[in-house]
Structures are given as C-alpha cells and as structure tokens.
C-alpha cells in the first residue's frame, strides 16, 4: 500500500462503478522530479505550447497568458474522489488568463511522460479564465516518450465569461501501462460556448470526467468523443452537463470502438435545474464491439426539474455490419481493410467535427495508425 490509498475512490463509490483505481494503491510511485525530454521527440505543436513533463510545467513557449499560483484546495462535497485527490495533492495551479475581446488562438497543454524507470504520480492543476467575448482553442494532449506506468491526475477548471468561445481538443496517447484521470469543469456565462473533442487512444486505465455548467442564458456546449480501447485498455468518460438557467443548449456524441480485451465506459448525465425552461439537450453514445472479448458499458442519465425542455438520448451497442463487410469484399476490398473502412466510417463522423485542421489531421493519422491495413483508407479521406 502507498499513500495514494487515502485518496483513491473507495469500493462502492457509485461514480466509479465500472472503473477501479484500486490497483494503483499497490504500486510504487515517485514524486515528480524535474524531468527532461528531448524536444526533438515531441510532436509538432498545434499552437503556443505549455510543456508539462511528468506533471510539472517546464516550458511556456510563447504563451503570455500563463502564470502560476497556489493550488485550489477547496472543492464542493459533491466533487469526485479523483478531483478531491488532485486538490489535496497538487503543488501549484497553472493559470491561463485570456483577456476579454481577444482571440488567443491555439494554446496547447502538452503533458509528456519522460522516459524514466520508476513510475511517477502527478497532480497538475490548470485554471483557465476566459474573458468576455474572448476566443481560445485549448489543446490538451497526453504523450509518452517511454513506457513508464505513471499515474497522472489532471484537473482543469475553466471560467468562460459572457459571449466567450472555447474549443477544447483532447488527444490522449498515454503509455500502454499508464493510468490517467482528467477532470475538466467548465462554467459558462451568458451566451458563452464550449465545444470539446476528446479522442482517447492510449493508456491502460483512463477516466475522463467532463463537467459543463451552463450558468448563463444562451450558453451552449457540444461534447464529442472517441474511445478506442484495445487489449488491456479501459477507457471511461463521465460527462455531466448542468443546465442551470433558461435557454441553454447541449449536444453530445461519444463513440467507442472496442477491440478484444478492451473496455469502454460512457456515463452521460444531463441535469436540468428547476426553472431552466427552454433547455435543449441531445445525447448519443454509440459502441462498436469488434470481438466477443470486448465490453462496453453505456449509461445515459437524465435528471430534470424543469417543465419545458427538449431532452433526447440514445445509446447503441453493436458489431460490425456483416452485410456491409460482404458488400465491400465483393468489390475486391480485403477483410482487414473492409473492417478498417467500417471502423473508420464509424468514428469519422465525430472526428470530422474537430475544427482545427492540423489537429484533426494529426488525430486522424493517430486513429488510422491503430487500424490494420489502413493504407487503403487513404482513398477515403
């Protein structure tokens, strides 16, 4: 047992019904040391880059909005166990302030795990304030330069002021044995917009909590995501969208392709407060199981206290369409390529919504790299 055990979710915690972090208590972790990475090994940045190595901010290349402060320790009682863990163990909070009426362009938070022997546990905390009518694209990217089985528990807090617009793009390519917990909470004022595109490819144990509080009239969010768990990968996204006031809108679509030995969990909660009439909330979760040894758990949850609302949700779990497979094969396309084509089509509907062309291309390449005989798919792009 290590010190983490005091903070990890307890057995029976309903928020972690399908996802256990208990194994982490038996591992030995080091505290993050000033790590180094070879810059040449890092992927090309999508914009101004904040480089975190093993959870510590190392470089703030061209991001003048960046500062640092004391970590936020106070959280409401309702916060999840992993968020509380972050609040307790974070050593500082990196702050990003986007002034009102500015376009901050693209800011990339790159979380790189260095090539080291003893796994590291880290608790980065980022606080983002987006001024009125400001605009920013925030890329959250997780990469591994080695095979370290780190545990990263990242918290991002975001205040989005009136009329501001935030695009969040998350690309998770953690090490094969890594555990990753991310908790992002965005609070939106009047007419603010938050769009998120999350693609999870890596990691052994991944839990992403995404909470959006639509606190101002006319606020809207769109949450898109893709899970691609393969052998010994468990990827769990919990979203919570809170419609607190009138005329707020949310759209959500998560898709998972689960291969042999993989598991995907999606829990999408929509909360509509009393008086939040005119709420429009659409949610869809689709799962494609590629093997009998693949598992997907999907759970939409609606909690509605207003009368005049439009809420819809749907979830599907299915296998590859055999008729489509045969059709493609009768046209000369091989089995592996046909599977890849259908998997690609399944996730592409979501990937295509990523608005930043560089990031979309890079994410699509990363997804394609996971598909067998994908050379042919070049024809489909």
């Amino acid at each position, binding site marked *: 047992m290590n010190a983490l055990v005091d903070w990890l979710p307890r057995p029976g915690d309903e928020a972690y019904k399908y996802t256990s972090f208990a194994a982490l208590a038996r591992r030995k972790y080091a505290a993050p040391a000033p790590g180094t990475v070879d810059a040449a090994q890092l992927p090309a940045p999508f914009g101004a880059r904040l480089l975190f190595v093993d959870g510590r901010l190392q470089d703030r290349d061209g991001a003048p909005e960046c500062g640092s402060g004391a970590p936020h320790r106070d959280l409401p009682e309702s916060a999840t166990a992993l968020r509380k863990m972050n609040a307790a163990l974070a050593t500082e909070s990196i702050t990003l302030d986007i002034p009102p009426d500015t376009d901050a362009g693209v800011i990339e938070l790159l979380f790189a795990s260095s090539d080291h022997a003893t796994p590291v546990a880290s608790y980065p905390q980022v606080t983002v304030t987006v001024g009125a009518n400001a605009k920013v694209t925030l890329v959250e990217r997780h990469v591994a330069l080695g095979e370290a089985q780190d545990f990263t528990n990242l918290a991002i807090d975001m205040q989005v002021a009136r009329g501001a617009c935030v695009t969040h793009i998350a690309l998770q390519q953690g090490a094969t044995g890594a555990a990753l917990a991310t908790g992002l909470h965005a609070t939106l004022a009047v007419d603010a917009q938050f769009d998120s595109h999350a693609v999870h490819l890596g990691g052994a144990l991944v839990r992403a909590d995404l909470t959006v509080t639509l606190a101002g009239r006319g606020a809207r969010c769109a949450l898109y995501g893709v899970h691609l768990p393969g052998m010994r990968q468990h990827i769990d996204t919990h979203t919570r969208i809170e419609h607190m006031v009138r005329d707020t809108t949310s759209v959500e679509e998560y898709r998972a392709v689960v291969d042999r030995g993989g598991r995907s969990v999606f829990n999408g909660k929509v909360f509509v407060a009393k008086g939040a009439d005119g709420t429009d909330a659409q949610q869809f979760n689709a799962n494609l199981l590629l093997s009998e040894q693949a598992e997907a758990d999907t759970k939409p949850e609606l909690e509605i206290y207003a009368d005049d609302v439009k809420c819809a949700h749907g979830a599907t779990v299915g296998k590859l369409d055999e008729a*489509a497979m045969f059709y493609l094969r009768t046209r000369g396309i091989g089995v592996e390529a046909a599977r890849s084509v259908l998997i690609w089509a399944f996730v592409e*509907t979501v990937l295509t919504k990523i608005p930043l062309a560089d990031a979309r291309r890079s994410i699509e390449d990363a997804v394609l790299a996971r598909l067998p005989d994908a050379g042919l798919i070049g024809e489909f792009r």
Partner: protein
Amino acid sequence: MLKIENLKVRVAGQEILKGLDLEVNAGEVHAIMGPNGSGKSTLAHVLAGRPGYEVTGGSALYEGRDLLAMAPEERAREGVFLAFQYPVEIPGVNNVYFLKAAINAVRRHRGEQELDAMDFLALVKERIKLVELDESLLNRSINEGFSGGEKKRNEIFQMAVLEPKLALLDETDSGLDIDALRVVAAGINALRSPDRAMVLVTHYQRLLDYVKPDVVHVLSAGRIVKSGPPELAKELETRGYDWVVQEARSA
C-alpha cells in the same frame, strides 16, 4: 469461364442447392429463372462467396480454378462481380472513394498501376453516363438515401467501372419502374462483350425483353430442371413455372 457441377449448398442448416449444373462461356449471357425459393439468389451469393453458405458437395470452376476456395475479395479481384438484389447502405463510406479503393485493389492484384485521382475521375464520369446516374450521388455515402432505382443503377455503374469478367446480376430488375428498367438494361447491354460472361438471376421475364440472353435456365428446388433458347422465357411468362416443374418430375 464458369463450370458448376453437382453443386450442393446449405444455408442455416437447410439444403438449398441440391446438385446444380451450369456452364457459362465468355461472351454469353445466361438467365436463371425460377419460382421464389428455388435457390436463385443462393446461387448468386455462393458464387460471390457469402459467408455462412456451406458448400456440401460439387464444384465450381472459374477459369479452371476452384472458385469456392477463394475469399470473396479474391474472387472480385479475379473478375467476379455480384450486383446485389438489395445493395447495402454503408453510412460514412463515401461512394466514389470506395469505388477508387475497389478499382485499385483489382489493379494492384493484376499487377497494374493504380489509377490516380484524375484518371479515376475521368473514368467515373464516363461510365456514370451509362446508367444516367446523378453525379451528385457519387459524393454521398454508399447507397445511403438512394432510391431503389438509384441503388440498382449504382450496382451497374460499379460493374461498368470495375469491368468484371463474370457478372452475376441478382434480381437487378426487381423494384424498378419501366424507365429505370430500360436504363439499367441499356447499361447491361453496353457492357456485353466477347470477353465477359453474365448470369442474370430474375424472377420475371421483363428484363429479358431488353437484355436478350443466349440461354435461359429454369431453377427449381435447387436444380436446373430445364434449359432453352430465349423463347423459353416467354413461355414461362405465359404458362408459369408449374409445367416445367411437372415435366422435370416426370422425366
């Protein structure tokens, strides 16, 4: 080109083809007619390699090779084409990209150079005229939202692009109105060639008013019970199938 001997096929535990013989030579068009449930579509699908169709006896040779031992994609690359009775809708897979992947899979197999985008597009634009298909459908997902007639025309269009040696057309006339039938038939006729064989599976004679077969076969209860000249189709249209079936029983 195609030589089938005593072919027996089970589908879902039930024997559908019960010793079928058929020989088709290059340049010929054969029509396979027969009542519902006689095994017509099973024949077309087993020749294309549909999984789940169990061959329990007999053989099918394609250009002297064991067709039944080949994977569906291999058959396609070797020049076998199945036009589906119910073309499959595949959301998210672009029709024209799919066709480019298909033609290049065939060309790679033949050791030919892959078509580049320009040459491919030129080919597509030329061949699509054959079936009077709206070019805007090219950039949609495969068959998604196509009308019944558009789906059938898309099958013939694909055939025109892929240029198979052996085309199996499964009930290509079903669900077509008369204008669409004429267009589809004209497309099929344009693709007749001395190097190409076609097998038209059809329940009704009407397609054969437009595409004149060299031989007409009657399939009943899993066997070909009668073969004859094109006039046989007319006779079937007026007299139905019963007499052929009776004749076969008493023979």
